[in-house]
């Protein structure tokens, strides 16, 4: 009995940390657009989404710290772990590329995020439910933003359509990880704490198809679970650079307050 509970707690900690890492890393990528947006309005919009995601990440880190009970702060998790300890989705760490890549990455993520949070709002885990409730409204704005841009760019010019096709092909193999349950996630799904991933998969696919159709774009045909492993710490080459940059000041002067 006791060990089953421990196992659930450990799984919960891992999953919460994974959610924190995914939202943080995606927020970080979006913040790389700050000052570089194709028009000021979209520069601001991407910062907005980045701010929402960093807020969500901080809530998850806070919860992770409580679960671990070792007196850690959010910054301990963010600034003093290496690539292999990060549990974010591979999708989130992919490079911004051009605006089409950023839009597609966001669209894949948001299409999962919105439905994931929608169910999580009713989780018996009250902290998770509260975090999900808080972020749900924000994410409904994110999915609106990314869907509209998928449609605009897909159905814009020949050039923008081509760029969208390239981005879809490039990021499709990473999109399946969103709904591929890790061992930890399976434990929590079984305990009714996390939403059913099979159902999410269906809803996600419907969302993708309906928006891509309106965008006059094709759904990529290949397997979308080719690139996975982020949630258990096996990352692409990009993450360690992101971390090196993000952690550089903290690591150069460890143990100080900023």
């Amino acid at each position, binding site marked *: 009995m006791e060990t089953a509970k421990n196992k659930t707690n450990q799984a919960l900690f891992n999953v919460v940390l994974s959610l924190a890492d995914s939202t*943080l890393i995606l927020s*970080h990528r979006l*913040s*790389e657009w*700050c*000052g*570089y*947006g*194709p*028009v*000021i*309005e*979209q*520069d*601001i919009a991407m*910062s*907005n989404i*980045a*701010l929402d995601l*960093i*807020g969500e*990440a*901080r809530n998850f*880190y806070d919860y992770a710290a409580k679960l671990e009970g070792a007196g850690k702060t*959010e*910054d301990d998790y*963010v*600034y003093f772990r290496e690539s292999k300890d990060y549990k974010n989705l591979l999708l989130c760490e992919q490079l911004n590329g*051009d*605006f089409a890549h950023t839009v597609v990455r966001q669209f894949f993520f948001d299409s999962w995020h919105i439905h994931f949070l929608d169910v999580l709002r009713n989780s018996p885990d009250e902290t998770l439910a509260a975090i999900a409730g808080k972020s749900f409204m924000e994410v409904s704005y994110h999915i609106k933003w990314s869907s509209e841009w998928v*449609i*605009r*760019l897909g*159905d*814009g*010019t020949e*050039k*923008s359509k081509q*760029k969208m096709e390239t981005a879809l092909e490039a990021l499709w193999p990473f999109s399946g990880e969103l709904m591929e349950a890790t061992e930890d996630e399976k434990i929590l799904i079984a305990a009714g704490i996390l939403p059913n991933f099979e159902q999410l998969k269906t809803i996600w696919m419907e969302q993708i198809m309906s928006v891509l159709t309106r965008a006059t774009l094709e759904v990529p045909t290949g397997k979308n679970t080719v690139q996975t492993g982020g949630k258990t710490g096996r990352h692409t080459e990009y993450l360690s650079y992101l971390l090196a*940059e*993000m952690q*550089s*000041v*903290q690591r150069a*002067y460890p143990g*100080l*307050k*900023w």
Partner: protein
Amino acid sequence: MDNIVDLEKHFQDRIDAEQRIEPKEWMPDAYRKTLIRQISQHAHSEIIGMLPERNWLTRAPSLNRKAVLLAKIQDEGGHGLYLYSAAETLGVTREDLLDDLHSGKAKYSSIFNYPTLTWADMGAIGWLVDGAAIMNQVPLCRTSYGPYARAMVRVCKEESFHQRQGYEIMMALCEGSEEQKQMAQDALNRWWWPVLMMFGPKDDASANSEMSLKWKIKRFSNDELRQRFVDMSIPQIEYLGLTVPDSELKWNAERGHYDFGEVNWNEFWEVVKGNGPCNHQRLETRKKVYEEGEWVREAALAYADKQQVLRESSQHVA
């Protein structure tokens, strides 16, 4: 001819009576030109000003600092938007104004041609650069042109948060380790003089000041504002335990103000001319960003046009 004289007199009377001039009203050409130049220069400064801070955004040393800095830089983008909109009420387009920026015809605040070299620069910029901007901008909330004044009211509301986040960064550094204090002092040393330059040339060397004062676009002279800024900043610097990099600085009890040393006007004009440490880099970055965004703007336009056609044809059917 009489008519123009009357119009000009009526215009100046309205200015003297502190009435706001609105977009559709008659205004002297030179007034319109001065406003376009000043508002667009201001808008460009907001946008270019995002670059030195975004340089440390991805290295912010805590999640809290990162979130606050991102919100701050995002605000600056918003300020750029308000100001481009205000300029557009004078009959120019944002595209034209950006073309002038990219060609080097339009200027922006020289302060953003200095590099950000350490995290402490995020503190110094928020505290001093935004602080000086507030000093310049608060009087603009009462400037004679309505859309500009209203844009400035919105801008000023957000600026005080910018200054506070900068000062908080400095406080944290000055309460920290010896290295952090040195980092803060080094930032102050590098930013102090360029910030004093933000108020523009000395009054007797300022080409545009006189008419701007008469038209109440400006309310105070460059030297007045510079003095105010020095008087306000010295106690803040002392509170941090830092030293002002000016050997001539001292309190003048007779004047009731601080005396301070001469700004290096040579450096000032060099940076204005394009020879500052980052002029080239900043402008090239903005041009590159603008070029890379072109296909996105084109696609958005093409899509909007298609939607327009669809709407119109569906109206015909109905």
